[in-house]
């Protein structure tokens, strides 16, 4: 029914929304690009001057940049691996018929609804605290010394917290996919003489390829920008051990008050995210084609 008139009407009606979205996106981007070319420090007001690409050179050659890039990749990769490797068996368990399953499911999904800040605080103060934490208490029960998680294994601790938050998401997506697996296919495999393990490898896992792809793509988008958990627990430290790109940019802008360098960092992060997305879609996106 696309007559010329309806097309014109549709475009006219869409224009305000599209224009608003466009402005919403383009103004911050333009300002960021503009700031990135300035010497602009909040501690030194009135001294703004054009410095070209100097901020980029400064940000990229900063040793903190490479360290935080590495932390970002380790964090994303580890959380992805943990959530999928644990999410698949967890989803398989939750797919079984057991009494009280709806309550178990609700409890498994619950961590995803806890705010990142809150869950980080709970982990930091109630669980991982070397003096008053639950883990320390358990260690004492066995006569072991308490682990000072955020000093001894800071990045691992952060990964643990974030994995705990994202595991329910992976489990939930994989569980819904499992429930859509045709029962007759499993029976056909049974008739074909496949053992439980063969059925898992040849029938279930290929069926899960697509949801796993979805989990990887969505989690990557959010994990590249993890901030609250780091801010609350370690503040990027000790040293740079838990500083990721997002936290580095924050510290440039609001700890060192260097707006110019932070803007340059923000643009670098955008480019990096796009590079990751590009490879990700190339590698795993094939699974999404029907």
């Amino acid at each position, binding site marked *: 029914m696309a007559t010329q008139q309806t097309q014109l009407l549709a475009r006219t009606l869409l224009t305000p929304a599209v224009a608003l979205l466009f402005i919403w996106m383009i103004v911050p981007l333009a300002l960021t690009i503009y700031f990135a070319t300035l010497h602009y420090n909040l501690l030194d007001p009135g001294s703004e001057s054009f410095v070209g690409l100097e901020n980029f050179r400064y940000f990229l050659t900063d040793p903190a940049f490479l360290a935080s890039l590495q932390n970002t990749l380790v964090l994303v990769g580890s959380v992805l691996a943990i959530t999928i490797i644990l999410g698949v068996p967890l989803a398989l368990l939750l797919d079984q018929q057991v009494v009280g399953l709806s309550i178990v499911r609700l409890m498994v999904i619950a961590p995803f609804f806890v705010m990142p800040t809150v869950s980080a605080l709970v982990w930091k103060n109630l669980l991982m605290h070397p003096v008053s934490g639950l883990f320390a208490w358990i260690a004492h029960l066995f006569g072991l010394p308490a682990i000072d998680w955020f000093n001894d294994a800071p990045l691992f601790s952060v990964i643990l917290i974030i994995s705990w938050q994202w595991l329910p998401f992976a489990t939930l997506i994989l569980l819904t996919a499992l429930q859509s697996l045709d029962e007759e*296919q499993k029976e056909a495999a049974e008739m074909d003489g496949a053992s439980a393990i063969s059925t898992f490898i040849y029938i279930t896992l290929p069926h899960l390829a697509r949801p796993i792809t979805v989990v990887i793509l969505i989690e990557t988008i959010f994990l590249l920008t993890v901030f609250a958990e780091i801010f609350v627990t370690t503040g990027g430290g000790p040293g740079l051990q838990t500083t990721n790109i997002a936290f580095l940019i924050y510290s440039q802008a609001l700890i060192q008050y260097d707006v110019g360098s932070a803007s340059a960092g923000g643009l670098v992060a955008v480019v990096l995210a796009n590079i990751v997305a590009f490879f990700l879609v190339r590698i795993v996106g094939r699974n999404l084609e029907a």
Partner: protein
Amino acid sequence: MGQITLQGVQKSFGPVHIIKGADLDIADGSFVVFVGPSGCGKTTLLRLIAGLEDVTGGAILIDGRNVVDVPPAKRGLSMVFQSYALYPHMSVRGNIAFGLKMAGIARDEINRKVESAAATLNLTPYLDRKPRELSGGQRQLVAIGRAIVREPKAFLFDEPLSNLDAALRVQMRLEVTRLQKQLGTTAIYVTHDQVEAMTMADKIVVLNGGKIEQYGSPLELYEKPANLFVAGFIGSPKMNFVTGDLARQQGATTIGVRPEHLKVERDGQGGWHGTVSVAEHLGSDTFLYVDAGPQGMLTARYIGELDLHPGDKVSLIPDPARIHRFDDSGKSIHA
């Protein structure tokens, strides 16, 4: 060899008895169809034979060996599912080969068997395609290919043609029958479609409410139904049943006459009088739905075209040799 015997097979899901004791002897190489209305237990019975459900009681013998505790794959049967249940991420070749691969057969041997099965079913050009790239009929063939490649003692078909359109169903019906005769393998076929049952079967098992009502060849069931249920279920349109005085004169509680055994006469003298309420003209046949007063609504089938219209008076004369008589309990009375 593929001789299957059921001895008092029972199945309950909790308090619900689905199969209330089934006894059956299926000869090697025969094509047996389980037919019955929805919920009669025909699919459950097939799944019990396959091993996908555990029996509650009784024994299932395959070639004389009780297999109730044998897992499905070790029973030497293969099944064609209603939804085909093809493995969507595997090619046609992978689908057909899967059972052989699981059995640990050498790759050369698998390839040879898969290719010979594909040739039998004219699937060779499609071997490297995925199931989603095939039509409904081709998918069905792949599912059959997966069944025949394992050279089973018997095929189990669970309403395999119900997802196909009418024309393709007729074609696949012939194909399955031809294949079964060619391979000479025992087949058990579940359907709710009595035309499929009548055309494909060597022997039909009519099931109702978890019980076997009758077991016999298609024509036996048509000509000598054991009871009211079988009489009403086999044959289309349904048999006419008349109770009351007319039946009592014949020494029965109920008498049944098939529509094709009622002779239709315009304003005739004998037989049962009535008024045509609906006339269906198919060209090859004419179906008349006649309001016959005390006998109720009767259906008559006339071979060829009969120029009758609603409101016309007719008389229906039953063929005396083709009247079925049933007693109080619904059982057939044989003279």
